[in-house]
């Protein structure tokens, strides 16, 4: 199996951008992006992400206050079809469950939950190089504002926008995925990925206001290799992810306490049921967090994905 493909399958499913109070948006942008597959091949994935957010930060300092927990669970169906030797298209459909738990000061527990269709995305990927020693893919896509953003709390009141499954805005997604084997170690791959999400405006926020989540840049790098153990191949990847989120804007004015910079460490492990089907498990945790103002920041992100591929037409030799 093409190591580049294994790598991309490994890397992309579990990397979820942090969802912070007031600045998170919908957690899916770094899930986007299969590798360019083989011609007339369908790749598919079913993923579950759990993003737990309880740490309250003031800039770089964690505050002694942990009565709040935010969590985002994402159930994501993805499919990519290689319709040209260099081009593929990808569809991404998330179901998002957002939860906000607060231990109230009279020792009660206040919980709000939203569940609904998130914003689906469509992308086109172009394979710039697909050589054994270099694989470079560029992607361009858009996230469509088809997700729900009118969810209400248990009193029937409209929830704030970062508790909504959808954003109500079109987002533009740009990505570059580069990977190549380490010389003399063909089983070991280095990867460098960049994902930029240009956030659009929701012009229907709270009636007729304009809300725009912060522009987002993610840089992902790491190392992967196949480990042979127990008569099995275990794809293993270690990586770092840097995420920068700009401030959200309300009616074109920047909002305090939104945006920031995070550096995550990530470990993922795969298991192959057969050459076409894999299970991937990943865990990611920030070791550097610098939020703007005071915000909740992620504790960890867990991901599990079932990934597979179907070839519709046999290779012609």
């Amino acid at each position, binding site marked *: 199996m093409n190591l580049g493909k294994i790598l991309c399958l490994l890397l992309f499913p579990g990397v979820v951008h942090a969802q912070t*109070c*007031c600045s998170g948006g919908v957690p899916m942008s770094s899930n986007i992006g299969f590798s360019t597959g083989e011609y007339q091949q369908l790749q598919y994935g079913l993923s579950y992400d759990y993003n737990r957010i309880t740490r309250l930060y*003031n800039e770089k300092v964690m*505050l*002694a*206050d942990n*009565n*709040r927990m935010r969590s985002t669970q994402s159930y994501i169906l993805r499919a990519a*079809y*290689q*319709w*040209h030797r260099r*081009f*593929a*298209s*990808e*569809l991404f459909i998330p179901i998002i469950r957002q939860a*906000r738990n*607060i*231990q*109230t*000061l*009279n020792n009660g527990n*206040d919980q*709000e939950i939203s569940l609904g269709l998130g914003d689906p995305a*469509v992308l*086109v990927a172009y394979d710039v190089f697909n050589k054994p020693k270099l694989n470079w893919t560029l992607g*361009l*896509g*858009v996230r*469509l504002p088809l997700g729900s953003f009118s969810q209400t*709390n248990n009193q*029937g*009141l*409209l*929830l*704030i926008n*970062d*508790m909504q499954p959808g954003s109500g805005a*079109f987002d*533009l997604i740009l990505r570059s995925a580069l990977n190549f084997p380490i010389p003399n170690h063909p089983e070991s791959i280095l990867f460098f990925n960049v994902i930029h999400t240009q956030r*659009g*405006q929701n*012009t229907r*926020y*709270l*009636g*007729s*206001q*304009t809300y725009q989540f912060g522009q987002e840049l993610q840089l992902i790098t790491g190392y992967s290799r196949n480990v042979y153990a127990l008569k099995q191949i275990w794809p293993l990847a270690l990586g770092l992810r840097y995420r920068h989120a700009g401030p959200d804007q*309300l*009616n*074109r*004015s*920047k*909002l*305090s*306490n939104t945006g920031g910079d995070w550096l995550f460490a990530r470990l993922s492990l795969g298991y192959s049921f057969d050459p076409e089907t894999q299970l991937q498990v990943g865990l990611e945790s920030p070791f550097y967090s610098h939020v703007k*103002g*005071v915000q909740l920041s992620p504790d960890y992100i867990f991901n599990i994905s079932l990934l597979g591929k179907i070839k519709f037409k046999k290779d012609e030799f």
Partner: protein
Amino acid sequence: MNSKLNLGSMLSLLALMSICWACTPKSDGVITPPPPTNSNPDWLVPKNQVFDGGPGRDGIPSIDEPLFTRKPDSLGFIEDFDLVLILKIGEEVRAYPHPVLDWHEIVNDDIDTLSLAINYCPLTGTGIGWNRKINGQKTSFGVSGLLYNSNLMPYDRNSESIWSQLKLQCVNGSLIGRSPQTISLIETTVFTWRKMYPGSKILVGGKGRVRPYGTYPYGDFKVNQNRLLFPVDHSDDERFPKKERLLSIIHQQDVKGVPFTFFPKNGIGLTLRTVGGEPVVVIGSKEYNFMCAYFSKNKSFEAVQNRLPIVMKDASNNFYDIFGQVVEGPEKGAQLKSPTFMMGYWFAWAAFYPDLDL
């Protein structure tokens, strides 16, 4: 043509069309709330104009075990120009500074035999005390995380009813329709508070849940006249800039607004109003940055200069402090009653009391 190729091409075409759509410029929004859509009997305000502010119930933590100091200089976050809310119960004067209130919004405090909640909304700039004894039972108030007209909605922890600070009413829950017993607070600067009551106590926080008090949490909200974070009614009322601070006096369903422009540039001034059919004297100072109001009982007053905390005297040579208490003169110890009054941003008064007289 291959059908799978068609699927891929269609997806790509959809992506490109969507990108073009996404790049189309959007028009600016306005900041009025949606029209009220129902008369839900469970709510005394339009339910569709009550918004989740984000942090959730108690996500903004009230201070339930307040800590005070008489020497705030060492803290580093209390400056002379900061605003404080001050009150006097018996001989005790306490100050509640905005830099702390901005992060907690509610302080559940006890002074002598009085249990009160200081409710302060940083988005409307309004602060007032509420008696915490309701139906003979002591309760505490917390921040519900909800906003109506961009204004704080406290909840009481005994009944979990939701109240509107500026509507001065419980608007949802088992206490619906009930009005709080108010204790008016005087808003002024740390400088003026120090000058009037040196050595009195000032709130410095509470046990646990410390916040960065030297940092204002809402960016340029206080000074940006056009900026609102949530929809409000009558946001197009431009009689004053949105963030201009006015005193509003509320009595018997009547509301009068008093801007600082009624007072001289230097020293202390008085102006008279009739609110709810009763005469009220309003004392104010641009220089010392305060306004407050008392029922005058048809007495005549004149301002007293350079003797803070004494601010006025009557024809019988009774000298009154800023809290309306006679501190010198034949009626020493007597106390003028006060209507409910609060300082607040103009947009908030226009939203809640669009018919208020100026």
